[in-house]
């Protein structure tokens, strides 16, 4: 196992290095830079600024500078926000994480429950209803669901706040603050859960259906085990195995932020910031954040491989 890990780590470093070079070149090749968009500047001033920011240097030299700084933990300054990139991450990532973590947890929980039940009662009225609901949820665009819920629950009924993370100007602390955040995140969490639920439920349902047809389930039933035990300790455990690979892939999504949801609900997350930075060609921030996601993806895959091994001893690493 440890030899395997060492090898994996080495691969990871190579992949990350290649990814960083690729990403850097892609960003450098995108037409326009941070200064292009400011059409008020004179040509001389533009040249001066490119000199100050080092944008006039060859791509590989810029990459080298960026890389050597990054190795020392310095991801540079965001040009648009005039702040260190790492500080910006600190400001926004945890808000995104909060939203994503809660909704991912709910999505998985609900998807497993519904998936198992509808697989067990395949073609029952419950299963049919669930399938219809799932297709409805999957086919609706997130902004539509979001705006619809805002209109009904926030503007008309005034049950929930229409957006933001706290009430504007609020100075509450402690439990009251917690309550306020929970209130504000309810709507976005509902939408995100609804959106993730569809595909995941289908996934669990079909896994479960497959497993229920296996011989060992028939054997277990024939041995006279109670149905509950058959279902939860034999069937579900095996049906969940493939899902473990999914867990690792969720990692970057947890920190990546959801652009649309954050936009609609005015949530102060990193997704929005990232999108804006792209429009402005704020390279230090874009590079930093993309690399961060790349690192998370690589760690996520490693994590799911290890988890898979832990869950299923037959798997050799």
């Amino acid at each position, binding site marked *: 196992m440890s030899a395997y890990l060492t090898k994996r780590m080495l691969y990871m470093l190579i992949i990350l290095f290649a990814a960083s070079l690729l990403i850097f070149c892609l960003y450098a090749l*995108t*037409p*326009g830079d941070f200064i*292009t*968009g*400011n*059409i*008020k*500047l*004179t*040509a001389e*001033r533009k040249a001066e600024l490119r000199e*100050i*920011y080092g944008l006039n240097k060859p791509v590989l030299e810029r990459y080298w500078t960026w890389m050597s700084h990054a190795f020392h933990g310095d991801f540079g*300054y965001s*040009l*648009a*926000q*005039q*702040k260190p990139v790492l500080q*910006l991450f600190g*400001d*926004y990532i945890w808000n995104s994480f909060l939203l994503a973590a809660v909704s991912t947890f709910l999505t998985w929980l609900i998807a497993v429950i519904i998936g198992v039940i509808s697989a067990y009662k395949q073609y029952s009225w419950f299963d049919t209803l669930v399938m219809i609901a799932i297709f409805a949820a999957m086919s609706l665009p*997130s902004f539509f669901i979001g705006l619809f819920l*805002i*209109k009904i629950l926030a*503007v008309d009924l*005034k049950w929930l*706040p*229409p*957006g*933001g*993370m*706290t*009430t*504007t*100007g609020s100075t509450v602390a402690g439990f009251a603050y917690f309550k306020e955040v929970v209130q504000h995140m309810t709507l976005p969490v509902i939408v995100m859960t609804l*959106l*993730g639920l569809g*595909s995941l439920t289908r996934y669990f349902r079909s896994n479960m259906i497959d497993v229920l047809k296996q011989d060992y389930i028939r054997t277990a039933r024939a041995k006279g085990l109670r149905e509950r035990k058959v279902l939860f300790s034999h069937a579900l455990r095996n049906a969940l195995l493939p899902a473990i690979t999914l867990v690792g*892939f*969720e990692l970057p*999504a947890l920190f*990546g932020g*959801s*652009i*649309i949801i954050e*936009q*609609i609900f*005015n949530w*102060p*997350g990193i997704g*929005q*910031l990232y*999108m*804006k930075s*792209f*429009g*402005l*060609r704020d390279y230090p921030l874009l590079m930093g954040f993309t690399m961060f996601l790349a690192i998370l993806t690589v760690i996520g895959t490693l994590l799911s491989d290890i988890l898979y091994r832990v869950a299923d001893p037959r798997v050799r690493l």
Partner: protein
Amino acid sequence: MRKSTFVLSSLFLAASLLLSACSNNSSPEAASTATPASSAPGGASTNSAASSAPEVVPAGALSEPFTATDLTKLPAAAQKRTDTIIVGLTDPSGAFTPYFQESGYDGNVSSLLYASLVTVDDKGVPTPELAESWEVSDDQLTYTFYLRKDLKFSDGSPLTAEDVAFTWTLQYDKAYDGGSSLPSLKVKGGEAYKAGTAKTVEGIRIIDPQTLSVTLEQPNATALVTLGSNVLSKAYYGKDYKFGQLEYIKKLHEKPLGDGPYTLEKFIPGQEVRLVANPNYFKGKPKTEHFIYKTTSGDAWQFLETGEVDYASFPATEENITKLKQLGYVNILPYTPSTYGYMQVNLKHEQLKDKRVRQAIAYGLDRQSIYVDAAEGAGAVANIPASPISWSYTEEGINPYKYDPEQAKKLLDEAGWTVGAGGIREKDGKPLSIHYLASKSKSSDIFIAVAKENFAALGIDFQPEIFADFNSLVSKTESGDYDLVSFSTSMLTDPADGFMQFFDGEITDYDNPKFTELYNKALATTDIEQRKAVYKELYQLFNDELPVIFTNYKKTVYAYNGRIENLSVSPFIGLAGSLPNWTLK
């Protein structure tokens, strides 16, 4: 599955963000457009009649301010606030030091934190603020500013000529990377300072703690407003200053020390900027204790409807105005920003070098349908490089280029473009084709739909190309591969700003000695009446020559909580001017 949603959503969002960034059909764009704040002097207006409404320009269905009809409908959230006013602002990033911020939204914040030496009134005419008065030497080169007595920064420290001199000098530092136009003013000795061969900027002279003067190398009528911008405290921002090293200032961005009506209480990234009234403000502490800029990147309707914000701006469409009137609890102000829209013309291309072809395009495009009717009245047709709210605006001797395809055809015939095979005009065997660039937005879609028909009727081969991203659009334009590109200016304070891009900006191919002469003549005097006369000539020249094809003015409305009194919005400095006088009834 997550991934594909992510990519799709990114694409969708890229498009919609651009839509809101570069078009007039965007959702409410908060207090002002994204213009670098340094170009517009911040701070409060000296116009004491703050309750008077700004210049009334008919906007869609609304030509006059509308007063709330039923304040009892005001949402409870808004009713509860007694000493706080909340305004939506798209995206303040936290860089609140004037001259160093990259986004106009930060400029909206700093315009409340810092006062300026000179401000402009509702017509864009300079008026005193921190400077009690000023003198301009006969050769128009030396400006002497006389500061008011007992000026203080918000921490109680005195504001003197030293601070002003420091502020100017800082912008000549070689490491200065901000967007201020002060370095382009050519202050005497500025270049030497930048090069490191002089210890101070020669042209800046402190006469006594309340008086200082600055000498330019060449006259420039915009100098007064540019020089008369915000003042940075030397004791605070200059403490660690060493020539060529400005990194330290970034650490102070979130801890601003100003002299404006408000001071920063707290900045919560992505959420809000909390401001509190400054008791040391030279005009007296503002009437409302707390002011909050709430970050609203999405739709502001929901926040106005639930009472979470008190003020928002919307395109002046009939639909928006009707909907706002129905709310009952908002006052509505019609407003035309100090910008203009235009199509940049590639003057390097043979066919567009001919004035008659440019005029034919102006005549042959149904601009009324595109910019006024399709926008439901939230716009007007432009014919000169100035907004109707500027003191220099005139329609005298201006050709309105009313939609007239016959006239357009006649001009094209005159220019030698005759209808050839397939109905496309030709000259010397070359077809007349127009490669048009624009960024993705609802208004571009409308433009293309109408222009296709219009151009087909004229016998022009029209080839539109749409960019999802403003930066890519500009890059493509810079590469020269285009005939026409749609743009809009940022806020223009001085009439000269409307011409700047032709003079030393991105439009380099318009070379007309008459223009250069008039442009310099208008800048060589500070007398408003004289300048007005020169600008009239310039507008007539541009209206005839069409070095760019003028398209439209935007029209917006401001809707605000009916409890707020004394609110007015200046087209040049936004709401900063009247804000200290706002009260909640």
